[in-house]
């Protein structure tokens, strides 16, 4: 065995990073997680919010795309990005009812495949907040009217002023791997909601979560979760990075615990991404940002660092080996940090300044493996099986 193979915790397995940016998508591949090959841009000029591989067939890619001029759509590839076909019927809101204001999909923000029990089912979350479902592998998309036409939708989501600077979003669509009727969604804003009937009815799941921007004590909804994740090691363990802290929930409990209170006080617990270890439910990573005053949304002090917990959030360690020590005024968006599924997982993030960073194992040295890309919106890691 060569030294390279001995040092690789994913021997003989190719790791692929699916990179979504403001100006197109890219695919980075590596056989040893040291040397990376970056593809030419895919759909150059299109805004790509999410590029996801179907884990059920390990072959189909779905890509949420738009340009500022032409509106949203979804492309599919069955040859790992060589050729693409557009959805025949992209996500689109149904006509309004009862005098409601009509909703128009501005962009598709999030894509989630369902479970192995529903091999052709995908979900899409949009801006403004909308949920859509495809039952044919992403060719045709239907409105999930249990949410989109719910009489409470506008109360849950607020209006145009209740969202991120580039539009309110539905994100973090999670399908319980044990029961595909059981869904979670996150909304910025709106909060976290749960359904146990394929999205026909929804219940808020925000107890214990701060919402300092709402002048109501303990609101049921209207929160701003930035990224919600279910542990691959335990579907009853949820974590989330919120506009107002970092939280953990062990179902069937319904009250979130603010584990971000254990972060260093000079860093705080504001950020966008939340990344979970593939096999250890106590280990996860966040990437804090400056959420003070006018919300600069850059690394605190210009000194970027990930923070890691290995005890479910009771304690956190700074992880900045290899990262700039000063004058790095970028940040990491909610979909732009991920981990692969190797035994010692590699961790990856992309920056708003177009740099792609990788660490071959938790706590290891960060290396910039690509730079000068457009603003990075999302990264997904795939390990060939």
């Amino acid at each position: 065995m060569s030294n390279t193979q001995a040092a690789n915790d994913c021997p003989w397995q190719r790791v692929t990073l699916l990179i979504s940016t403001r100006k197109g998508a890219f695919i980075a591949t590596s056989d040893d997680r040291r040397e990376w090959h970056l593809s030419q841009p895919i759909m150059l000029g299109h805004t790509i919010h999410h590029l996801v591989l179907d884990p059920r067939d390990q072959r189909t890619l779905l890509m949420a795309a738009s340009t500022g001029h032409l509106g949203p759509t979804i492309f599919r590839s069955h040859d790992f990005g060589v050729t693409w076909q557009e959805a025949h019927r992209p996500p689109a809101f149904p006509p309004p009812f009862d005098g409601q204001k009509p909703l128009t999909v501005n962009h598709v923000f999030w894509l989630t495949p369902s479970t192995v029990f529903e091999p052709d089912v995908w979900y899409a979350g949009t801006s403004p907040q909308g949920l859509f479902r495809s039952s044919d592998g992403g060719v045709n998309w239907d409105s999930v009217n249990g949410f989109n036409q719910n009489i409470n939708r506008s109360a849950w989501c607020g209006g145009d002023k209740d969202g991120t600077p580039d539009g309110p979003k539905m994100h973090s669509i999670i399908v319980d791997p044990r029961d595909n009727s059981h869904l979670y969604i996150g909304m910025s804003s709106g909060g976290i909601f749960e359904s146990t009937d394929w999205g026909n009815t929804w219940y808020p799941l925000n107890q214990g979560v701060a919402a300092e921007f709402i002048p109501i004590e303990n609101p049921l909804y209207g929160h701003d979760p930035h990224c919600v994740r279910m542990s691959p090691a335990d579907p009853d363990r949820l974590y989330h990075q919120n506009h107002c802290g970092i939280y953990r929930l062990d179902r069937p409990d319904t009250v979130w615990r603010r584990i971000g209170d254990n972060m260093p006080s000079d860093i705080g617990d504001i950020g966008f991404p939340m990344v979970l270890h593939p096999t250890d439910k106590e280990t996860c990573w966040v990437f804090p940002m400056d959420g003070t005053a006018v919300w600069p949304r850059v690394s605190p002090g210009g000194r970027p660092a990930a923070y890691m917990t290995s005890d479910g959030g009771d304690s956190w360690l700074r992880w900045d080996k290899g990262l700039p020590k000063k004058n790095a005024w970028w940040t990491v968006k909610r979909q732009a940090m991920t981990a692969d599924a190797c035994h010692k997982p590699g961790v990856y993030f992309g920056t708003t300044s177009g740099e792609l960073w990788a660490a071959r194992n938790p706590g290891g040295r960060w290396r910039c493996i690509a730079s000068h890309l457009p603003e990075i919106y999302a990264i997904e890691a795939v390990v060939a099986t």
Partner: protein
Amino acid sequence: MTAVRVPSALHDYTGGQSKLAADGGTVDAVLDDIDRQFPGLKFRIVTEHGAVRRHIKIFLNQDMIEALSTPVGPHDEVHVILALSGG
């Protein structure tokens, strides 16, 4: 038939053609016809509720039109224009 000119951003849908020909008595009907010829094209121009997308303008000959119900004739020309916006 009515001539329809489309910008380069839509040429992926039209096989590279910038000038199309379509039937229809209104701008909306003309767009329906080019969508039949080039599936998916209309949704790039018009939202799910029938509104022209934010950064797109439609001209009938020399005049910008707001209503897709505007009548057109066989000797008219419909121009689909992308706004010069973005960064």
